[in-house]
């Protein structure tokens, strides 16, 4: 149970936000979303370092980008997997019945 962010000092918030942001590069867009959700309640705090807002903004942009990339990939996969033959079947987790 971590301390609620409202009670954290600005430096703590900055550190946490930074860690979450850089963690997100390990193919973890959820961490970016998490970052935003986490810092959101205190985004308007006066003593908040401006860097935190930068991290939030970047997190948002990057997570959207990654999400779009994976959505596109998934769309391609769903539409093309039958044309890919064995490759498509290998990629599929559970072969869908009937198709």
């Amino acid at each position, binding site marked *: 149970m971590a301390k609620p*962010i409202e009670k954290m000092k600005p430096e703590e918030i900055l550190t946490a936000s930074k860690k979450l942001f850089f*963690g997100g590069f390990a193919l*973890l867009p959820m961490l970016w979303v998490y970052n935003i959700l986490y810092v959101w309640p205190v985004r308007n705090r006066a003593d908040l370092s401006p860097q935190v807002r930068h991290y939030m903004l970047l997190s948002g942009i990057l997570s959207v980008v990654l999400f779009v990339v*994976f959505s596109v990939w998934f769309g391609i*996969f769903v539409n093309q997997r039958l044309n890919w033959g064995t490759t498509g079947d290998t990629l599929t987790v559970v072969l869908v019945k009937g198709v």
Partner: protein
Amino acid sequence: MSSPAARGVTTPSGQTSPFPSSSTQPSDGTIVNTQALSSRAGTDSRTSIRGQQDTPIVTAATAGGGDNGQGDDDSGEDQPCQACGVFPARFQCSACQSVRYCSQECQASDWKIHYRECAEIVAAQKEEQTESQQGAGRPRSDANGARETGVPGDRYSNDMEMTSRAAANPSRSGVAGEPLGGEGDNIRATANRPRRRPREPRRRPRLTPEQRAAYEEAERIADMKFYMLQIYKIIKPVVVCICLSIIWVKISMAGSDYRPTQSSYTVYKESASSSASQNFLGSLANAGIIIGQIVIVTIIIVILFKRGHIKVLIGFFMVVVAMLLGFMGYILILNLIQVLRIPLDYLTMAFALWNFSVTGLISVFWKGPMWMQQMYLTIMSSLMAFSLTGLAEWTTWMLLALLVVWDLIAVLCPFGPLKILVESSRNQNQEVPALLYTVNAVWFMASPPDAILNRETLNSKESSESEDLTLNNDGSPRTNFHGGHSRATGRDGGASISSSRNSGLDASFSAHGGMSRTSSTMALVPGPNGETGDRDTIELRERARSGDSGSSPRSRGEGSPLAGRVANSASGRQEPNRDPRRDSRETDEEEHRETSGDDDDDDDGGGLKLGLGDFVFYSVLVARAAMFDWVTTMCCMVAVLTGMNATIFLLAIYQKALPALPISICFGMLFYFATRFALVPFLAVLGRGQVFI
């Protein structure tokens, strides 16, 4: 009491008399008052005394005044009498506390002018209080403060004010001078300052036995209300978890070829052809193996904890959580995509699972929004429960029955592992490492910094085990510091009277299991701390909440004012607002959290913590019922929740560690079999006969 004097005058403390500046007992106020008045306005004193007997109007100290007598002294000197301009203005308007007078006569004469701004000020103060979130409590208006202080006259005089205001209204237009009104504004502005000063605990006189009894009674009531709120809060995630499990099971069963994965631990495979006795013995063996694992893991955890290998425990819990989220998530996804016929590729699935589990790990063990953590814990429990539906039917019921027994033994026996765990956590001042669902964030800012650090590390551990569930009320180390502290406060404050109830409703449940096995043992654990201490805390907290609509920070020092409130209510003057406020409170955890933003306040603690083991095994029971029929599902759900409520009530009564599983599981099993063998056939007949159509 229709005279303007009814609105009450309070003397800034310290000035008027050598008496203790704050007083719980009306009699003190009276004495002080009399003195002051007789020295000042001799003629008036008689009437005012009489007035006080009815409703002590003049209070020796307001919250602000009592808390920082010196500060008020200064400000008293700054500020002349509002009516005549004389300097030692020792009384202040008890409603808004922004205006001072030299005597009650002066107040009476000024009331015609002051009443309007008085109302404004009070309104503004209230607004300020409710609106400002972080700072909300800090600049807590004295009007409220005074109320909390429980100076009995305060609230009353406020009420009186309302009436007298109406009375004064007609005369106002004639007499009141505009210039004076303007002046009043200025004064108001300046007079607000002293209010923001930090408060210190004050001393209170000892209470008579009758009063004490009355307070205890009032606290008992408040306690029960507190537990009820806790039930409301804890029941939501449990319901969510149970519903999720039901959904997983129902979706999986919708697939024609759903075969629950048999656990590899089971030595005996049930088959339709085997006889009841074969099934019984076989399932007993299966369940015994699982319980044995649970017992062993529990004991290992207890030993590790006693030896202080907290890091090992945390590491273990992290592995368990990661496995649960990743592996069980994988199994669930396989089921879902198969039934729903979703084409999914390994890339996307790996990506999603990776994100899901890493985020879960971070939210559970590191930092994150509370709701996120709660969400993950709930989902994890439902995953765990889903994985346990793979057990054969007889085995499941046998397992649940054995768990009840184990739970009772572990928590209630003198050498039960969980009991030892709780006790050693109390002795070592450490949080029990376990996976807990916390209702509220509990932060006791008052504890020394190092304590906080400690706690942080501990906390992380605490939340770890995949299956250890502890329902702690406040429990644990944190509470410790805090509990002690608040207790002290209470004493200093004199306020606290009685209460010694501990927040002890901690149910700690540990379900340890190897990864796929869960073990559960739940214990309701009393806070490691003295029970008394914690209880006080809760009390105070509770009161504070109701007192200031939940938004003001409570600092330690406030303990006494809060207690004062108790006095107030005990004396039969219940504030009307109290209950509505409380009600509203339960819905806004959010608000609490924000509130808790105040540094000096620990507030929103006192949360009940529910061990994940409870979640898991409640869900297992209901999920098993869901595999039979919707009727059994719903009956079991209601039964389990009822059992949980009963457990929490018992907790409130006994104030000690209690096993949380037995009642719920017994209810659930009873209702399952009753429903399955009586209600379902009955409904089937009714349905065939179209009785109700």
